[in-house]
């Protein structure tokens, strides 16, 4: 019996009137966990009942603790008929299961009903007493930390980055069970919410087990999605990156004024891993030895030949000169071997991270992606995960081989997605092929002379741009030049990636959001024929999306894309493609050439004139954009070796790989393009449209910037004012004579208008930047297009922003913060150094300290005592939550970013992963579809904030709305919406307050009497 869950129901407020006669409610509460249910007394005739219940105690396995949500149901007691449910609260108790996170969940939770929305609030206190058992074969994985953040969380240090973890669970969708015909919509919705909650818990537990197997203690970049397959089932799948993390102690402790030796000692237990093996795993793993038992010949074959990949490469034409990077070559090879071996034992050397510790990323190859079209009704055994597992394995294999073709052994910024329409499902995966520094992949043992030499040779700020592949055997036609920064290594002329801009990258000017939008009509078809039609369309779509991106990038005068995300959505009669990325000008890459327009019929005079007019417009736009984004690279005399003078030639051909099976298309976005690729031939009206659409993209109004990465390059003085928002638009297409062009225009207008609306709405925040702009497209019905955008607007200080950083190396905020962290790491390393020399093996020590044996050194005992009482951190939490003078509701910030500008995250409280369904049968009365969805999203935000506040947090970082499935039936006055959100609950402290806290640090050790009071606040 490894856990005791304790729940107390304190009070309710703002309850709805359930008894019309008295205008009051006789409310009571059912508390359910697993199969056990407790009830409170009925509190008669009140809308603000005070139950003040006893502690309800559930004695449960930790496996159940991980899987099951705590279910609290508020009901209205009725003597004569059945009790009416007012609403429910589901509480995920996972954050209580690892020691570093929350110790208690306590606060007001909105009572939620899937038909009526939020109906009042309930005050609940939840605690867990966990008894550690060291059973190796246990099924639970309590203690493994989960983070949605796709970088190493701010108050941790990565000791080892183990790699890819994935899991997938399948269940029958309650909405499609026979019983759904006879039960109420409410019952059906609740069954679904509960099931997804259960499945999420199970999934997380299973992933946790895999992490423990890998000897990690955390999952970073955890991304969980659900696929509503319909008849064939409900899939919940997740990917993440297993890591071993060390907690950096609280920032206050590092200030010299108060960092007495005893303080430092105190931090040790917090660094301690619940899994006792972590620290001892290092020196004796067999992995390390394998590193050197690597055969170079094998490596060579991988580099030079594409035969062992399943790519069908197009002939290489007009390849560059034969001059190999003489200095870089051998190192590169060596490094590659090292890394490869480190990654070899991994089935999939993938990383869901998009930002990395300094030095982790060595080279970036480019974007790799794979897609596959599947038929859901062909799954033999729909209730088992095998088929889907096999599908994903196939795609991942594809990605892996693409990366290999690029001379890379790892894929970073990796993500997976699906698009489902009826029985057709498109599975997509994409990432950035990269060469990684092996130092982080295993223990610190790899740090040898080799690496030092490498680091000497790799100038900061451009290393990652250098090509990882063999220049003689390039997997695709690309145009290489010597790096504009170090002049030693070759770089491509354009770089596309799915990751965030590396901290040390040298960028000129500012970045901007670049989107490619595309629609393709498709005949309605069934099954196999439909899948084939989609498969046939996909390559063209990818090609066009790619061309659009490239053209728009050129038009902005930039040469690299970060955070690239291409979403292909399938509908009944069309396919939509939406690519978003942040364009920047990398100093290491060559200046992009312009766009040239060539006419097809040179004899026609007026046509000629038109062309030259267009050309002028394009040139003007480029010039204007360069000014707007402050792109003014230093003039470099053209001394580049092996760069042929660009001549107008044909459009570049995009390389793609296509596998044999008819229902499957995979693609490789390798084309980094060539300068001569940017000749647009206006040979028909289509091309004309393309050019027009290029020019119709309006830049944001002055004072506004936008990007889809975490940080806007070129802006470094963020203020603390942030506004996260979600905006949803649905348009109905007029079904008459829909052509591709009309469709494209509609879609383009939809996105552009949406952006314009955002700029207008947020105009009071100017100067400001929309960061992490995340567009999602779905096709809920035949003629409906839905676009959902979530982003955060952050204001910055204009005065400083105006100081243009011409050739001056970027000092982005992120950089500044890592600088801080590097400073902060110093005492931490002291701690971790001291650990191995500790006389006790970690496991033993853990046990002993837990039982507070007399054998422990005095200093440590003190620590255990402090750890056991919530006082220390309770005080801290008190201080960190900004006092709200008038309002009783504390402010909870939400942001899709991994940080909060002007603040320091001091604690991660656990993952927030919530799923809600809302349904209405009185759509008109609720303000139509807009009113319905507006209220629902506001409610979802409220429930997220309430959970975070109950955990003792004051912000959610890395927040993401993963799904927003909206269905309407206006004729029946009905609508339904499903929303899935996730993020990391954190405690942050304003940097200005931080100093105050640190000077007050000694007073933290106040008598324990103040601890009790805090818990209930």
């Amino acid at each position, binding site marked *: 019996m490894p856990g005791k869950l304790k729940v107390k129901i304190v009070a309710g*407020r*703002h309850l709805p009137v359930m008894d019309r006669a008295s205008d009051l409610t006789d409310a009571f509460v059912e508390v359910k966990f697993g199969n056990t249910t407790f009830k409170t007394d009925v509190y008669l005739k009140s809308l603000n009942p005070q139950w003040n219940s006893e502690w309800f105690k559930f004695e449960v396995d930790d496996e159940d603790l991980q899987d099951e949500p705590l279910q609290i149901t508020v009901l209205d007691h009725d003597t004569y008929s059945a009790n009416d449910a007012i609403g429910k609260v589901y509480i995920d108790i996972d954050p209580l299961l690892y020691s570093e996170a929350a110790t208690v969940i306590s606060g*007001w939770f*909105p009572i939620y009903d899937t038909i009526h929305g*939020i109906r009042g*609030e309930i005050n609940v206190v939840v605690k867990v007493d966990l008894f550690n058992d060291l059973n190796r074969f246990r099924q639970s994985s309590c203690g493994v930390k989960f983070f949605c953040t796709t970088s190493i969380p701010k108050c941790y240090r990565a000791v080892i980055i183990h790699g890819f973890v994935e899991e997938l669970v399948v269940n029958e969708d309650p909405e499609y069970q026979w019983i759904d015909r006879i039960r109420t919509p409410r019952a059906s919705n609740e069954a679904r919410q509960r099931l997804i909650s259960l499945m999420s818990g199970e999934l997380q537990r299973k992933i946790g087990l895999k992490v423990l197997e890998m000897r990690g203690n955390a999952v970073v970049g955890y991304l969980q999605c659900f696929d509503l397959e319909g008849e064939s089932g409900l899939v919940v799948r997740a990917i993440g990156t297993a890591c071993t993390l060390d907690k950096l102690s609280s920032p206050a402790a590092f200030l010299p004024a108060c960092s007495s030796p005893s303080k430092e000692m105190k931090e040790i237990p917090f660094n301690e891993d619940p899994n006792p093996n972590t620290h001892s795993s290092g020196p004796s793993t067999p992995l390390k030895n394998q590193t050197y038992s690597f055969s170079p010949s094998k490596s060579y074959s991988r580099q030079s030949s594409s035969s062992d990949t399943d790519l069908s490469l197009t002939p290489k034409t007009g390849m560059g000169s034969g001059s190999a990077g003489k200095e870089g070559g051998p190192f590169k090879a060596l490094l590659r071997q090292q890394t490869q071996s480190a990654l070899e034992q991994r089935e999939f050397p993938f990383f869901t991270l998009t930002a990395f510790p300094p030095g982790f990323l060595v080279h970036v190859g480019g974007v790799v992606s794979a897609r596959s079209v599947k038929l859901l009704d062909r799954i033999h055994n729909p209730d088992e995960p095998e088929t889907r597992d096999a599908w994903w394995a196939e795609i991942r294999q594809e990605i892996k081989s693409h990366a290999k073709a690029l001379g890379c052994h790892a894929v970073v910024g990796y993500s997976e997605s699906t698009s489902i329409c009826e029985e057709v499902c498109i599975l997509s995966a994409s990432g950035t092929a990269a060469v990684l520094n092996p130092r982080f992949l295993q223990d610190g043992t790899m740090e040898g002379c080799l690496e030092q030499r490498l680091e000497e040779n790799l100038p900061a700020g451009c290393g990652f741009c250098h090509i990882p592949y063999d220049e003689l055997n390039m997997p695709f036609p690309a145009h290489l030049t010597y790096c504009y920064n170090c002049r030693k290594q070759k770089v491509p002329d354009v770089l596309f990636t799915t990751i965030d801009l590396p901290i040390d990258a040298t960028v000129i000017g500012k970045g901007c959001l670049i989107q490619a939008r595309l629609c393709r009509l498709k005949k309605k078809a069934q099954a196999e024929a439909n899948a084939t039609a989609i498969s046939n369309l996909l390559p063209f779509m990818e090609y066009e999306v790619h061309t659009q991106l490239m053209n728009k990038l050129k038009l902005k005068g930039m040469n690299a894309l970060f955070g690239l995300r291409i979403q292909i959505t399938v509908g009944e009669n069309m396919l939509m493609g939406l690519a978003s990325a942040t364009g920047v000008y990398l100093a290491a890459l060559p200046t992009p050439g312009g766009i040239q327009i060539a006419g097809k019929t040179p004899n026609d005079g007026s046509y000629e004139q038109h062309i030259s007019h267009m050309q002028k417009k394009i040139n003007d736009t480029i010039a204007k954009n360069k000014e707007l984004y402050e792109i003014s690279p230093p003039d470099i005399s053209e001394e580049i070796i092996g760069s042929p003078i660009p001549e107008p030639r044909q459009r570049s051909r995009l390389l793609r790989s296509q596998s044999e099976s008819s229902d499957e298309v995979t693609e490789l976005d390798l084309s980094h393009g060539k300068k001569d690729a940017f000749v647009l031939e206006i040979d028909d009206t289509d091309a004309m449209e393309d050019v027009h659409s290029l020019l119709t993209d309006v830049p944001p*109004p002055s004072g506004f910037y936008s990007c889809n990465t975490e940080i806007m390059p070129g802006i470094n003085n963020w203020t603390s004012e942030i*506004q*996260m*928002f*979600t*905006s*949803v*638009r*649905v*348009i*109905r*297409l*007029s079904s008459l004579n829909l052509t591709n062009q009309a469709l494209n225009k*509609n879609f383009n*207008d*939809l996105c552009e*208008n949406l952006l*314009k*609306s*955002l*700029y*207008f*709405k947020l*105009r009071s925040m100017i100067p400001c930047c929309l960061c992490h702009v995340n567009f999602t497209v779905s096709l809920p019905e035949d003629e*409906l297009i*839905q676009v959902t955008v979530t982003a955060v607007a952050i204001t910055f200080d204009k005065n400083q922003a105006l100081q243009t950083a011409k050739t001056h190396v970027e000092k982005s905020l992120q950089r500044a913060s890592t600088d801080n962290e590097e400073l902060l790491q110093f005492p931490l390393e002291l701690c971790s150094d001291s650990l191995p020399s500790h006389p006790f093996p970690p496991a033993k020590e853990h046990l002993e300290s837990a039982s507070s044996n007399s054998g422990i050194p005095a200093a440590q005992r003190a620590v255990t005592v402090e750890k056991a009482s919530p006082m220390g951190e309770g005080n801290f939490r008190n201080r960190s939550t900004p006092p*709200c*003078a*008038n*309002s*009783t*509701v504390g*402010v*909870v*910030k*939400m942001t899709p970013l991994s940080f909060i500008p002007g603040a320091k995250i001091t604690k991660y409280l656990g993952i927030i992963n919530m799923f809600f369904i809302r349904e209405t049968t009185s759509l008109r009365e609720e*303000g139509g*579809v*807009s*009113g319905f*969805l*507006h*209220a629902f*999203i*506001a*409610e979802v*935000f*409220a429930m997220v*904030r*309430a959970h975070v506040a109950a955990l003792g947090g004051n912000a959610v970082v890395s927040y993401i709305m993963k799904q927003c499935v*909206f269905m309407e039936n206006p004729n029946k006055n009905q609508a339904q919406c499903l929303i899935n959100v996730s993020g990391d609950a954190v405690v942050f402290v304003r940097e200005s307050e931080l100093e105050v806290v640190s000077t007050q640090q000694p007073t933290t050790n106040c008598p324990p009497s103040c601890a009790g009071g805090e818990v209930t606040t």
Partner: protein
Amino acid sequence: MTSELDIFVGNTTLIDEDVYRLWLDGYSVSDAVALRVRSGILEQTGATAAVLQSDTMDHYRTFHMLERLLHAPPKLLHQLIFQIPPSRQALLIERYYAFDEAFVREVLGKKLSKGTKKDLDDISTKTGITLKSCRRQFDNFKRVFKVVEEMRGSLVDNIQQHFLLSDRLARDYAAIVFFANNRFETGKKKLQYLSFGDFAYCAELMIQNWTLGAVGEAPTHPDSQVDDMDVDLDKEFLQDLKELKMLVADKDLLDLHKSLVCTALRGKLGVFSEMEANFKNLSRGLVNVAAKLTHNKDVRDLFVDLVEKFVEPCRSDHWPLSDVRLFLNQYSASVHSLDGFRHQALWDRYMGTLRGCLLRLYHD
């Protein structure tokens, strides 16, 4: 291409003050958009009319959802659905409960009943305030009235506590509640020159001095009217006012009073002769008003009587305000020298307030 659905939800609820004003003023979305266009916002921001339309709709939807909470402002503070900074919450509440001068003059002193609500159409036409806005203002009055009507304690404090209004606005509402409860007539033609501010000033003085709560101690009869100390006039006090009648009924007393006042004011008053000629009339008017206050009907006509009996005669003789002040001061003070008159305290309680009111009411 038509927009089926178009929403924007911020973690911090966006409040556009200009749109809020338009919404409060009862404009429809399309009218609001037209007004915004006219304000030149498109030129300033480079936005399109479609953007403006979408933005206005969004704000209207938000306000519509907030309205339910605004009906009980403490709920707005405790609710979890909309994250709004405290300063913004205060602004929302304050603006929601703000009212138009023209409107309040129409309903001040009227019974806040369904009947009056039916007249809102006419009020809307007359004042040019949209019917929607009239309804909101009327409902606000009624809501505040219902909540504080039966409550004990200070009227202003009660309003402030339950509606979280600023001190200024709470005082205004106290006046509205007080007037509605006592049904003072304010709509007569001869009262049209008076502003809401004039009435509110009088109401405050009356609440401070003429109600049960004004006595500052527990009411003499524990069972009577304990609940609405500030809203109802002190019945006993009104009853006692009859005693003042002797000031005009007793000829000697009246003459003595007159001579005292005239002696004191000779040479100080620009309109001395007019005052001397009118003294008895004025004094009779003021004392008779007091004596009649036992009847509800006459309480309602208090302001009409004051204007008829005092303001108008003085105004027709072109008394300057300074002379009115001098006269009233002397008029009240001289009573203390009347040996035969025993109700000095009663006189002060009555005249102190009345003097303040009259001075406020005396203007063009």
